[in-house]
């Protein structure tokens, strides 16, 4: 019990930190000290100072503001992608698990085939072909992401389907849609959501990797991966333009990964 209590406290702390991070980035408009897009010829590659807490980049843009705005892009894109894969995957998984039969066989065969592809290789090729842009990168990663959700949802639905209360609902004349929405969905939400949480870190790594390669966001939109990629060229002169977005990326990924880990542990205890 003590262990559970300890994990609970950790979850609360991590959740608060995540909320703080979300607040900081969604509220970038209020917190950012400067305009992230305003270039300034007078302040090119300024070292961190009071006006520019994280310094400025090659065009004299405030790195701090760009990190905040960039976080918004990265986090929003990640959340959106995970949420869509979660939705599609869970939906497919539930249908497969509940109805079974030919539908299940066909969809799961597709899932097997998708799983047999090397994910990042496909993502790079697809993002490259779609010609850059955030939506392209998201499609490229999403192609393979729904599978894990579908499999998880399917296996849980499979177990749930044979529970007595589902049978009872069927005998009571409830429709399949009603049973799926009211009885099955709420019961498989916890494990599938936990999976979603653990996917956030990986997705963020994937997205910022694609942006770094120039296959993600298109400048001038700020994003951590592309900021690092841009500033890499003049890292000798202005290391802060790389280090701060790098630090932000690492911290965010660690935060989400840790939250996912702790919640997994909590559910296991």
């Amino acid at each position, binding site marked *: 019990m003590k262990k559970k209590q300890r994990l609970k406290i950790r979850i609360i702390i991590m959740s608060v930190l995540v909320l703080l991070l979300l607040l900081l980035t969604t509220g970038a408009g209020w917190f950012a000290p400067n305009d992230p897009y305003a270039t300034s010829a007078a302040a090119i590659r300024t070292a961190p100072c009071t006006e520019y807490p994280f310094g400025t980049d090659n065009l004299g843009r405030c790195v701090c503001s760009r990190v905040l705005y960039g976080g918004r892009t990265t986090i929003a894109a990640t959340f959106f992608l995970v949420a869509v894969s979660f939705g599609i995957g869970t939906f497919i998984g539930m249908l497969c698990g509940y109805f079974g039969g030919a539908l299940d066989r066909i969809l799961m065969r597709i899932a097997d085939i998708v799983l047999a592809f090397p994910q*990042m290789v496909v993502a790079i090729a697809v993002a490259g072909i779609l010609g850059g842009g955030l939506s392209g990168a998201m499609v490229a990663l999403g192609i393979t992401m729904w599978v894990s959700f579908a499999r998880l949802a399917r296996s849980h639905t499979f177990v749930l389907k044979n529970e007595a209360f589902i049978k009872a609902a069927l005998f009571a004349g409830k429709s399949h849609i009603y049973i799926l929405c009211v009885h099955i969905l709420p019961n498989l939400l916890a494990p599938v959501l936990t999976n979603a949480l653990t996917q956030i870190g990986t997705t963020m790594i994937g997205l910022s990797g694609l942006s770094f390669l120039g296959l993600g966001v298109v400048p001038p939109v700020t994003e951590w991966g592309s900021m690092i990629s841009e500033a890499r060229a003049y890292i000798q002169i202005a290391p802060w333009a790389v280090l701060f977005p790098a630090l932000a*990326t690492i911290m965010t990924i660690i935060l989400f990964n840790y939250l996912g880990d702790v919640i997994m542990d909590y559910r296991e205890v």
Partner: protein
Amino acid sequence: MIQKALKRAAGFVVILLILSLCVFALLYAAPGDPAEKRLTAQGVAVTKEVLDAERERLGLLKPFFVRYGEWLFSVIRGDFGVSFKDDMPVGPKLFQGLKNTLILTVSSLALSLVLSFVLSVFSVLRKDKITDHLVRVLSFISNALPNFLISVLLMYLLCIRWKLFPVIAKGDLQGLFMPVISLSIPMTGRFIRQMRAEFLNQMSQDYVTGMRARGVKMRYIMFNVIRNALGHIFTIVALQIGTLMGGSVVIETIFRWPGIGKLVMDSITARDYPVIMGFVIIMGSIYVIINQISDLLGHALDPRGAEE
């Protein structure tokens, strides 16, 4: 036995056909015109007639399935078609790149495996002691590091701050060091986490209790634990190959390592379709083959449940 092998081979071919067809269709439907790219790159003024002539020459005007069929045939021939960029056969370029990529990825994989194996065994033996905690924290952090970030940070520290290595890698051993480290760090983190979990899972099995109760020496127990974990470890490694391939594209681009990943990144901007297709099909086959092998190895190592 032969039937099983045939079934696997058929599955392999089907997966690759589907993969290539998907990417081919995507290339077909995607925006961007290779003919136009090529002409602009050559500095030719793009007019409607010139463009159409170029398209005709590159075979872009043929129907979809004819083009796919021609491409498939070129794969069977082994030349993977002709580059849109310089009219050279793509095959030799791809295989030259693949050779370099394999040097890079195989050495990173070897390094990661050795490191993670030693560290996770160490961590399991000292469970809940300081060393274990240290290994866990380090593996957790390195698992969270995207490899492009590691390479940028390493470059900054080692090449610029401490001036230990040249900034641009050459194809020699010294040039191999930084890319290999950048690829290995996150992979090692991932391997340690998974191996440690599997070793602990094996340690909690009843047979370990039984062996302890018989007073079997720790080194024999550890040997049994590792032996039983091997099947699972092969699966973990095989699944990581995909991530490793993606990572090598990033790393090759950063360090200008002349591998297949850098080749494909150069080709993406030029819309050099045969190179992109060749990349996907070669990486896809390697990935699928490795996963099949690990599957077979898993069955050989743990014959339980193999009778189905």
